[in-house]
């Protein structure tokens, strides 16, 4: 009996001992699993419990005019997001959110009676509410963005509705205080494929990298109550706000030319128009405008389809959207490649003078010029016999220019037009700058040379023409145009000046061309439109537009480029109107508009008339 009890005790003791050993190994195994196998997961869980994470959005840099006024700035906005598992009443939350945030209706109201319209609108609203419900129903997601860039009032309304599981994340929305002003220079901010803010066109596009900045993140260790521990671990990755960009644009001049250009395009019934004002000594762009323009803050509105609506039902903005669509966005001053016409003649004349093929006293025949089976004539079929180079320019004589080009010969002409910067971009810091392609020297025919001499058969942008004319003003040195004055960094600023100067022609040739351009204004075909008392140098250009390979006399590009006062210019300005129908001649369209703007510029610069 005693033996039996001892045996039972020994068995229990062994069982207990082995149980402990087994439990010990289970414990060791579990510890191994936690510390080795599932290490990453538990670290993540622990960090989630111990850390407060917070994203710090980077503020997009501002774009300022030369007087420091913000042309593009930021206004606080909010991203509305949901934590779906916290949303209590999905139906109610979805319908309230749709009510507050709203949506763009696509219902076409015509051909619908009141009842049908109401029915359609209800149906559309239900569709949006259902879409919202779908977003809120995704309970396995912790974060569901619902609406971007909502303003303060929308946020307040949502807060007042007291919806469970709906939160806000601070963000910024781009704002353009001057509205449409300088829209083509500025560009706009949209979203890229990853849903991030991205600049398109103009400065917003070209300097997107500098402007956007880098979002930061802050991580603070928290205590059991969720409060941050000041001496705990602190992992800040500060946001780097975007850099501010100061432009050379003079706000007053920009406003002035935009008003005048809009009036001019409407008055002469042109398809579009461009004006650029430059400081010719430095290459600084003081104002640059194209019309029609757009409001960069609401750029999406211009892409909507208004094709089935009548013009009477549309607002001015909708009419522009219907007529131009996305063609509104490119900056015509740098992206519109066109045949310049007669404003190119002074360049040809300067090459002839520079190469010594003519002098200012050379007599050039003004008469029909036959070449390769064609006959080149003057724009008005008037001929003046033997003319000086100045007279050729005054009469804008194509036949005289063709003869001048013949004297120059192809190779020097080709090399000089490359020196003048044709065929390559000016390098201005705007995203949409374009240029024409100049064909290889071997591909030029004699007729190409003759027509290029008076600006047909070659293409330029308005800004390229401006750049070429700076050579006449600066004793033969051509300056590079620029539009960014400085980029402000947090502790300093990077200043810009004209990146380069290039001697294209001699000072003597440049002076001769300036004198000729003064005579063009004083004695040319448009002398009656000129402002009295001011010494202005300039040249008109009326270039026919090729339609299906044939030049159409009823469709022209009208340009006037000039500077004043001629002896020491305050400004160089180009005015270009595309396809004006009120008149097809520059003298009756671009010149009056140029003079109208110049009149105000003289007052602005304090230039008194000579008499």
């Amino acid at each position: 009996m005693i033996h039996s009890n001892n045996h039972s005790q020994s068995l229990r003791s062994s069982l207990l001992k082995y149980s402990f050993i087994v439990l010990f190994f289970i414990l060791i195994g579990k510890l191994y699993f936690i510390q080795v196998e599932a290490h990453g997961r538990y670290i993540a869980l622990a960090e989630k419990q111990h850390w407060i994470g917070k994203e710090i959005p980077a503020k997009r840099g501002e774009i300022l005019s030369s007087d420091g006024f913000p042309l593009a700035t930021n206004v606080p906005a909010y991203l509305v997001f949901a934590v779906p598992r916290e949303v209590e009443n999905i139906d109610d939350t979805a319908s309230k959110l749709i009510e507050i945030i709203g949506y763009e209706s696509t219902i076409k109201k015509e051909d619908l009676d009141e009842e049908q319209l109401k029915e359609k609108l209800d149906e559309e609203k239900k569709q949006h509410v259902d879409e919202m419900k779908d977003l809120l129903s995704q309970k396995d997601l912790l974060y569901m963005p619902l609406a971007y860039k909502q303003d303060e009032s929308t946020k307040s309304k949502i807060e007042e509705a007291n919806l469970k599981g709906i939160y806000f994340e601070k963000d910024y929305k781009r704002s353009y205080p001057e509205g449409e002003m300088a829209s083509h220079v500025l560009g706009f901010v949209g979203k890229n494929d990853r849903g991030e803010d991205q600049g398109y066109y103009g400065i917003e596009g070209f300097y997107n990298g500098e402007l956007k900045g880098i979002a930061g993140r802050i991580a603070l260790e928290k205590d059991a109550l969720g409060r941050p521990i000041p001496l705990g671990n602190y992992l800040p990755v500060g946001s780097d706000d975007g850099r501010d960009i100061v432009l050379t644009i003079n706000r007053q001049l920009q406003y002035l030319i935009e008003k005048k250009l809009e009036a001019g395009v409407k008055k002469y019934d042109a398809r579009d128009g461009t004006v650029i004002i430059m400081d010719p000594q430095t290459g600084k762009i003081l104002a640059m405008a194209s019309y029609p323009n757009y409001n960069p803050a609401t750029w999406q509105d211009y892409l909507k389809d208004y094709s089935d609506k009548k013009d009477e039902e549309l607002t001015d903005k909708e009419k522009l959207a219907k007529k131009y669509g996305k063609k509104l966005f490119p900056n015509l001053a740098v992206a519109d490649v066109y045949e310049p016409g007669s404003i190119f003649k002074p360049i040809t004349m300067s090459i002839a003078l520079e190469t010594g093929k003519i002098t200012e006293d050379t007599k050039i025949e003004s008469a029909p010029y036959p070449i390769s089976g064609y006959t080149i004539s003057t724009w008005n079929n008037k001929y003046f016999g033997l003319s000086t180079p100045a007279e050729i320019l005054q009469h804008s004589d194509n036949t005289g220019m063709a003869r001048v080009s013949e004297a120059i010969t192809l190779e020097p002409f080709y090399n000089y037009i490359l020196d003048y910067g044709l065929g390559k971009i000016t390098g201005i810091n705007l995203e949409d700058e374009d240029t024409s392609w100049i064909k290889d020297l071997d591909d030029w025919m004699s007729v190409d040379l003759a027509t290029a001499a008076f600006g047909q058969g070659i293409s330029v942008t308005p800004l390229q023409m401006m750049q070429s004319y700076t050579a006449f003003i600066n004793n033969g040195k051509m300056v590079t145009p620029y539009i960014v004055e400085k980029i402000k960094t947090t502790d300093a600023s990077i200043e810009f000046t004209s990146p380069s100067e290039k001697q294209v022609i001699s000072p003597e040739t440049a002076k001769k061309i300036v004198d000729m351009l003064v005579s063009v204004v004083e004695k040319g075909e448009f002398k009656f439109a000129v402002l009295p008392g001011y010494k202005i140098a300039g040249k008109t250009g009326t270039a026919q537009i090729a339609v299906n390979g044939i030049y159409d006399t009823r469709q022209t590009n009208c340009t006037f480029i000039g500077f004043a006062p001629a002896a020491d210019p305050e400004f160089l300005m180009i005015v270009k109107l595309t396809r004006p129908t009120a008149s097809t001649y520059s003298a009756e369209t671009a010149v009056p508009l140029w003079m109208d703007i110049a009149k105000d510029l003289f007052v602005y610069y304090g230039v008194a008339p000579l008499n």
Partner: protein
Amino acid sequence: MIKKVSDSLMRRKLMHQELNKKSTVFFDLPKGLLALTVIMISAQVLLSNIFGVKGAELVKLDEEQNSLMHEKTVLENQISELSALSRIEKECQENLSMKKIDKNVVYISDQAVASLK
């Protein structure tokens, strides 16, 4: 014999003293440690509390700063919009009854003004 007894007594006395000494060390050390631990825990609690309160204050100040920055941005934006040239022109025309001048305005040089006098 007497010497042996006295040696034995002396040894016992020394052993007793040694034992007493050991027991003093045995009982005094935990008391000191205990006091030190209590002081350290109290300090830890106190400091944690202070840091916790300061942390909450910092969070509050951070929120206040954010809110003021937000207000500043909104106000700056309003200023920009109100001082936009198109708005100034509109206000001048609508509220101050200012009109555009139809006639030509020209700048007159100082000499011309002097000759008029």
